[in-house]
């Protein structure tokens, strides 16, 4: 090879692909997952499966947003549906009242959800742990009460229907949602891996220690609430326009608990864990429709089994079997390697012989 490698040059991309992506099973799986999402319509345009994948992508974004707040920062939210539903309703009402398109109303809804995130984050400055969870739980209940209080404005029990579609066809909607999902995910992943992400981690582990080194934890926690609410809001807006209905169901307790289940199943504090959890559980629930009576039972048993044998979540559990951390430089390696790809240290050291006196 002659000359320096440019960041966007093809050889650089290929080298990066070879050494940084294909070298690790986890990253290879992630690449395959992205390719699968982008290329799926080339193999099938079955509207039912496009719908399932679209909804899964929306919910995966929703679960990842919960993970940023609750997994990374430890501010466990049991009322995440508040941001999801609020954005959906805002987008629906704005669309109806002003005639704006979803391209504008969804970001505006997400923006309001961000402000609401700061509002919900304020109690976190005074209460912690289960008390904070209970406080967050109150917000969707209050929102539901308001919806029933102003039925002419919110549609009451029935919600608002006939919202404009996201795209002209199922395929267009699919690509729109998938692209927004992938970009959002990249932002969340980068944020979680940045210095701010490390501070989020630190807040979860020992907030007092973080404060002692001069970090403003108030600002950090509010930031976590705001960013998490922003992405939950984007998911909520997409959901409302995809389903074409913004109803009280979007604010239900069930909808608040779902991201928790998906995240714990996939592996919390990873961002990609909740995504994997959603992309496994949501389609499985669809496939289980063939056993109507046993559907929910089989689903619950599956979760119990996975939690029993992979308590840290599916992603962490599988990756720990496929990858190994180098004991010296901490770089991850494929389980097939005998020497670390970074420092060359032998990964499988022979067991030390017992010396008999």
């Amino acid at each position, binding site marked *: 090879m002659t000359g320096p490698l440019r960041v966007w040059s093809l050889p650089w991309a290929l080298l990066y692909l070879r050494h940084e992506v294909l070298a690790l099973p986890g990253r290879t799986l992630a690449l395959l997952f992205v390719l699968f999402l982008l290329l799926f319509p080339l193999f099938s345009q*079955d509207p*039912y499966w496009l719908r399932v994948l679209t909804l899964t992508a929306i919910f995966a974004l929703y679960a990842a947003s919960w993970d940023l707040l609750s997994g990374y920062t430890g501010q466990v939210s049991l009322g995440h549906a508040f941001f999801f539903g609020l954005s959906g309703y805002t987008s629906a009402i704005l669309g109806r009242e002003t005639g704006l398109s979803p391209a504008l109303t969804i970001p505006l809804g997400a923006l309001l959800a961000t402000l609401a995130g700061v509002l919900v984050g304020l109690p976190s400055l005074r209460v912690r742990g289960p008390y904070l969870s209970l406080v967050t739980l109150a917000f969707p209940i209050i929102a539901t009460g308001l919806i029933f209080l102003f*039925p002419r404005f919110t*549609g009451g*029990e*029935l919600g608002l*229907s006939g919202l404009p579609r996201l795209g002209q066809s199922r395929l267009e909607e699919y690509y729109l949602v998938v692209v927004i999902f992938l970009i959002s995910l990249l932002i969340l992943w980068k944020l979680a891996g940045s210095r701010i992400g490390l501070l989020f981690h630190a807040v979860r582990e020992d907030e007092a220690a973080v404060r002692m080194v001069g970090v403003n934890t108030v600002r950090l926690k509010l930031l976590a609430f705001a960013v998490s609410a922003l992405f939950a809001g984007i998911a909520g807006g997409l959901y409302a326009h995809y389903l074409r209905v913004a109803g009280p169901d979007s604010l239900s307790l069930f909808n608040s608990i779902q991201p928790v289940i998906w995240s714990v199943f996939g592996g919390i504090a990873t961002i990609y864990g909740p995504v994997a959890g959603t992309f496994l559980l949501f389609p499985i629930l669809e496939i289980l*429709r063939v056993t*109507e009576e046993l559907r929910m039972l089989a689903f619950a048993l599956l979760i119990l089994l996975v939690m029993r044998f992979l308590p840290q979540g599916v992603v962490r559990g599988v990756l720990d079997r496929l990858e190994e951390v180098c004991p010296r430089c901490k770089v991850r390696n494929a389980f097939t390697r005998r020497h670390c790809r970074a420092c060359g240290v032998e990964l499988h050291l022979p067991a030390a012989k017992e010396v008999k006196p």
Partner: protein
Amino acid sequence: MGRIGTAVLWAVALLLGSGVSAQTLRIGVVGPMAFVQGEHTWYGATLAAEEINRAGGVQIGNQRYRIELIRVDTNEMTSVTDAATAVERAITAQRVDFLMGGFRSEAVLAMTEVAADYRKIFIITGAGLDGLLAGRVDRNYERFKYLFRVSPNKSSDLARTSLLLAAEVVQAVRQQLGIPRPRVAILAERAAWADPLVETAGRLFAAPPPQGYGAEVVGTWRPSATATDVTPELTAIQRAGAQVIFTVLSGPVGVPFGRDWGRLRIPAAPVGINVEAQQETWLRATDNLGTYVATLNSLAPGVAITPRTIPFISNFQARFRQFPIYTASGAYGALYILAEALTRAGTTNVDAVVRALEATDYTGATGRIVFDRTHDVTWGPGYTTGLGVQWVGGRMQAFWPRNWQVEGRVVSYAGVRPYELPPWVVEAWRR
């Protein structure tokens, strides 16, 4: 058998198979199948499909079609997303030609959006909110013309009927107990659908006759729809001196209400809407304390609303060993209405079937069904009215409409008996 023989047999089987599938109408029966509402939707449709198929199927043009029902469990009580996806699966993967059913209004709204996307006819048989059709079919006809409702009557009509039932009880208190201005307590669950009914009832009870009932409203109590104890509310009602309790209860709170009311011997007669009291399991659920409770219903044992009512109830009970609830009679009627519309249309072309459905004039188990301009079932004398039922002597019996006079007509069904005030109410208030 040689290879040629086997091949011929396969070819014949394939030909026959393709012939059969070409003459089959696939109807998706939609509902929360783990709940009684969904289960009865399926039962009602099954009974109708069996009868129609036994009679040779549906005649469409020159061909006869057999009905094949596809069970679509929507899980709609838990998840609206699940419900909408189930309908999309039914349309695209299970290839249904028509849809019927649905119970929870919010979920039905999302399901009907999917049906409208695919231009599939969807006959609602379980959800009652007005807004499912009003404001959609009339305002955006081209998109929503595929939606129809056979049962129940829309919420506002159910409210009208429940207030008519209350009028019967107020009248009974006035005449039998000699109280010229009966006192009424309103007990409504905390739910959005109950709000307009509470407001209307309050006004109507207090207004002087002939517009109102000339009664006195002593207060309104709003327990949770899932409350397990309504003793405080009932004690307060007793203290307020009410002779009538107007109930607006659709949730499980109906059972604790019936149990506490009977246990405490509250001297006020309950009437209105209590969905739990519509089911044949009512007395068992209330430890037999729910006797004398009155509620709006669509069917009652031995009451012949039309000549089809008793045969339907008998056949249903013989087949499923249960008394049918309104989703059963709705789905049963919906399938016959659809079959007749297909026959009249002479084609399966959706627009032609919609036009034929709009011209429906069908006498079913619960009354005469004619669709209005929003494709909703028409309420009133000569159409469907609903029934007022009361638990007396260990069984459900109807007390309304009995000599109901409206616009110069008298509406009455065979098998309807007079309303009976609970004996402890009579004992407490007789002057």
